[in-house]
């Protein structure tokens, strides 16, 4: 049994440990359980969604281009966490943050009733009953919120309900820098 063979476990382990160390450094920046969006820095997908109700415009790609940065919130009336983040969205709307919504796999009457009860923070709402447009955005659950810049490019994706610290640390700074 060559002496070298005895050193093999140690060598292999050092490689493994080195890798773990490197990976740990990377994790500090992007936790691996936040799956990235394939759409970051890409233009928002082409879409044209019907309005939810009378008097409220629908949503299409052109609405997001050349009109300043927007927050696009994907929501549904049957979604619990959407309800949890809703007061925050109302506050954002009151502060003048440009907020538009995509109503995902929902019934218009349910969504309308929901917004009537909780308040409507959206300046425009597009209805996506089949979820096809959402697939193009890369949505896999509700709620999700996208930061779209003035040229209609997706810059950031937030999965799950927006919590105050996400707003302070990630979303608002990005919006401010996009506004120039």
């Amino acid at each position, binding site marked *: 049994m060559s002496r070298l063979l005895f050193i093999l476990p*140690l060598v292999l*382990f050092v490689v493994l440990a080195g890798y773990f160390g490197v990976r740990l450094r990377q994790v500090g920046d992007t936790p691996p359980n936040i799956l990235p969006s394939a759409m970051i820095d890409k233009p928002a997908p082409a879409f044209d969604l019907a309005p939810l109700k009378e008097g409220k415009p629908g949503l299409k790609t052109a609405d997001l281009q050349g009109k300043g940065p927007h927050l696009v919130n994907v929501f549904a009336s049957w979604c619990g966490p959407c309800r949890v983040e809703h007061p925050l969205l109302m506050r954002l709307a009151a502060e003048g943050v440009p907020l538009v919504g995509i109503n995902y796999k929902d019934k218009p009457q349910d969504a309308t009733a929901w917004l009537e009860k909780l308040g409507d923070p959206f300046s425009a709402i597009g209805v996506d009953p089949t979820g096809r447009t959402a697939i193009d955005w890369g949505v896999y659950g509700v709620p999700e919120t996208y930061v779209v810049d003035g040229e209609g490019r997706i810059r950031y994706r937030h999965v799950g309900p927006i919590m105050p610290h996400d707003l302070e640390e990630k979303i608002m700074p990005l919006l401010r820098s996009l506004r120039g």
Partner: protein
Amino acid sequence: MIPEIGHYALVLALLLAIVQSVFPLIGAARRDPAWMGLAAPAAHGQLLMVTVAFAALTQAYVTSDFSVLNVVQNSHSDKPMLYKISGVWGNHEGSLVLWVLMLALFGSAVAAFGSNLPPTLKARVLAVQGMIGVGFLAFMLGTSNPFIRVDPAPLNGQDLNPLLQDPGLAFHPPFLYLGYVGFSMAFSFAAAALIEGKVDPAWARWVRPWTLIAWSSLTLGIAMGSWWAYYELGWGGWWFWDPVENASFMPWLAGTALLHSAIVVEKRDALKTWTILLAIITFSLSLMGTFLVRSGILTSVHAFAVDPERGVFILALLVIATGGGFLLYAVRAPSLKIGGIFAPVSREGALVFNNLLLSTACATVFIGTLYPLFLDAVGGGKVSVGPPFYNATFVPLMVPLVAAMAVGPLLAWKRADLAGALGRMWVAILVTAVAVLWSLWVHGFKPVMAIIGIAMAAWAFMGAWVELAERVRLFRIPLAESWTRLVNLPRSAWGTALSHAGMGIAIAGMVGTSAWKTESIQVMAIGDTVSMSGYEFRLDKVEQLRIENYVSQFATMTVLKDGEIIATLNPEQRFYPVAKQGTTEAAIHTTFISDLYAVVAEPTPDGRGWTTRLYYHPLVPWIWFGSIVMVLGGMVSLADRRLRIGVPERRRAPPAAGAAGAQPAE
């Protein structure tokens, strides 16, 4: 006050662990009995201190002391008492206290029961054990202190994750940790043997009880976790090859290999360097599992804490312990004396084959678990490795392993007659053939793996008993003599038979539920009946109830067979308002040969009824029944006289009649 006592006790435990690590090691090198003698009291003292700390934390949970941050984060005054207690270890910091408690328990046990260990070996074993304790206690006090206070104390806590408020999962960690930490003892023995420069059959016999306890506990812990997943997650699955599951499975595979290779060291004084390496690897896998789960490096539903700072500390622990172990191995192992030689077809050969397959299987699981991480680090994107990979690689490795498992114990040491051994197994061959024919008749040719699986299960199960029958020469000598032999068999023989038979039972369960289960998903209204697998399921009512700390959608279903009521099932959907989380409580009716499994999910939006999932799982209870038999085998083996008496001494004179001496080596 009491949390401060607990905190202080941890600090004292750390100091004692430092003493335990340093002085006995120097004492062993200098052959100084006084310094070596520090090991045992230090180990006992460490156990005492960690017990005090654990008791203090438990007290904080039981009295819902919300001035302790850990209690705030993981408990709530409405929680049932059982889960207040299990909440102690249901979080990162508290589980570390449990870890260190087990570590101290094993150290103290070796100090107390290891009176037949040579003093230098004992001192070194306890010293290495102490070093591991230093590492974990320092980690806890440095980054994961459970006794941090919060001021002002909130009125109530944030509740324990509802998924953990369950009897199966409440007790799953203690058994798992007994296993993980128990293998630290094998590691300590291996490191001590390397420092001593000597591995002999006596060492193998001393290591065995600790390895058996660890292995049995880990088996039980994994089985409990699997059973919990089955009844709690609502899909009837019992193993998902999730990275955290794999993190527990790898030490189990390596530990099983260790148990088997240690036999060769003990009986034939061979495979020494390999066994030492295996002992180091097994515990390193436990540590690596700890690292993976707590560092934030993995995406998993199980992962404890996404905290890279803690991750760095655990990585340092891993590097020191495993790196140190492998370094010691590289330097000292080459000087260990080579042992007895043996032919490839022999019991040693079979055990080497066993180790080869188990190590390969372990490596396969290792690669499957870490491949996504490696790929991500080199920028290859995010992938996931799931059941298809393991089905293609792990399962085929198990087939020859189980085939050898049944015939191995019948082979002689040094050089064996395989054909003869197989011939003696004709009963097992017969039963296997019958089982295969039956399964072909009832279920047909597909899937092929099911047929192979049933063959393996029957072969393993019958092989175990055939081996016992061989030992007592059943039907070849008078039955009364066979009986006497049976009663006087060393318990390790019973342990072998039980463990191997248990494995066979478990395999049958795995095959049955994977290959032959039936599933039926539909919308049911009140009064509807669904037929499946010869049973009828009728939804009787669905109520909304408020119980303890949750709200329940409580359904009542009646199961009938040929018009007779077999069972009443109560599947629930629970919502825990404090944690804002829901759980599915499936209703299971078991005949101990198969399970009927019912879930009533959300009501449909149009109010037609409820989505229901009904399953028929044949043989699934055997998975856990088989596991328990395996654990029983381990426990019975532990009770073997030879492990208490110690290594047989060479007899100089013919023994007097009835003298209490060691059993003849067999």
